[in-house]
């Protein structure tokens, strides 16, 4: 359906504005044969994975700390609001200027963009923890590990899932910007070159496989995990 609309649009617009699906496919094929497509996809994916995991880990830790401790919350809250409202571009440029044009700066910039979002979501999750279950765990003397695994984590699961979902989409968008501005490989870098040449075919040839990859991760990884952790919920509207 989407491809049909695209084909229709391409036949109306000039080739320079919107190339036909087949033209894009052939560029994807050519890039794949030369190996450049996979090198760039892998570079971007590695950055997405690294910054996503770092942002989730640090954001969760910060969110849990802020949710549990009032003074940490008061201390970090203004910082969080600043980070939430600071444009991604500002963070990225500052990171490159202060840290240098290297991988660490790139990852740090992405993490800083995602982290406040995770922290805020997890803070809400901690605040919403059911105190009556916590009391139950205390009376029954559950060991800490069991308590985290069976009492706390299942309650945080929806918040973690929400943070992961929005996180994955946000992180990969920002990774492309970071690559465009200061890296010499990756999907973002290739799109930057396509932009300089006004080559829409090449731009789409790099963007679409990556979108497909992210869709696959969402469908085959995020959603099944989500279904598994919420299997105890009675089905809605049944």
């Amino acid at each position: 359906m989407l491809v049909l609309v695209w084909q229709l649009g391409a036949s109306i617009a000039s080739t320079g504005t919107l190339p036909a699906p087949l033209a894009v496919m052939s560029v994807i094929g050519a890039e794949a044969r030369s190996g450049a497509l996979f090198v760039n996809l892998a570079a971007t994916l590695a950055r997405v994975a690294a910054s996503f995991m770092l942002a989730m880990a640090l954001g969760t830790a910060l969110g849990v700390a802020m949710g549990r401790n009032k003074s940490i919350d008061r201390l970090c809250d203004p910082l969080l609001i600043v980070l939430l409202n600071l444009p991604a571009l500002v963070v990225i440029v500052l990171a490159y200027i202060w840290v240098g044009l290297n991988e660490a700066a790139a990852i740090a910039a992405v993490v800083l963009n995602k982290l406040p979002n995770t922290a805020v979501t997890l803070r809400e999750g901690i605040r919403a923890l059911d105190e009556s279950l916590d009391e139950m765990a205390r009376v029954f003397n559950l060991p800490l590990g069991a308590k985290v695994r069976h009492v706390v984590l299942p309650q945080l699961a929806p918040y973690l899932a929400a943070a992961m979902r929005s996180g994955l989409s946000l992180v990969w968008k920002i990774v492309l910007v970071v690559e465009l501005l200061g890296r010499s490989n990756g999907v973002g870098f290739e799109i930057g070159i396509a932009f300089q040449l006004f080559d829409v075919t090449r731009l789409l040839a790099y963007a679409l496989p990556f979108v497909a990859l992210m869709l696959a991760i969402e469908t085959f990884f995020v959603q099944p995990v989500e279904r598994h952790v919420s299997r105890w919920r009675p089905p809605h509207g049944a």
Partner: protein
Amino acid sequence: MSRAGGRRMELEVSIARKALRTASRQTRVVLHDVAFSLRKGEICALLGPSGCGKTTVLRIISGLDSDFEGRVVLPSPHRIGMVFQEPRLLPWRSVAQNLCLVGSSSENDLAEIVAALRLSKHLDHFPGELSLGLARRVAIARAFAVKPDLLLLDEPFVSLDAALAAQLREELLALVLKRTTTTLIVTHNVEEAISLSDRIIVLSAAPGRILADRTIEAPREALTGGRAAKMKKEIRSLMANASS
């Protein structure tokens, strides 16, 4: 067989004063001079009108509330099994997992508890799929699964219909008697207290203090209808006098 055979004290409670701070920054005394001790195997009912601080006594004994004047002495080490007013099961774990999680019971032991409470068919269910009566059964089973030295129950039969409550009472009693578990059960129901326990402590309306502490010589099934009726009348008039 004498249930109160051992001299050993299983629980000593002496609460001089327990106050709550209200939202408007006033202090409200909830409990005043509540002191008693239980012997091993004793089944004691804590009886009193709603809002007299019965649940607070349980929370203090279980260690959930440490903000009070007085002390609670339990033998160490000890294990407490508690049945809250709401079942407080983990909704994301099956009935079997809910029981195993807390439990130090062996498989045989657990199977026996499950059978006694007629839960065998429901082990794979999630708590959200159970009726309130069944969820209460699971909560009781969980309390027994820790092999408790002290069993605390907070109105475990409230909002069940009379027939179901009676049935569940019998099942509970069978388990308690078989294991000689020291039990403290909070209730506002005089009949329930008389039918379950061999000792009844009556609390006044707030601030709760002890109005009476009666040991029933020949409790439960040995209790004749006449004596039960007399006791019921006595306790009712005690509670009525205190509230007027």
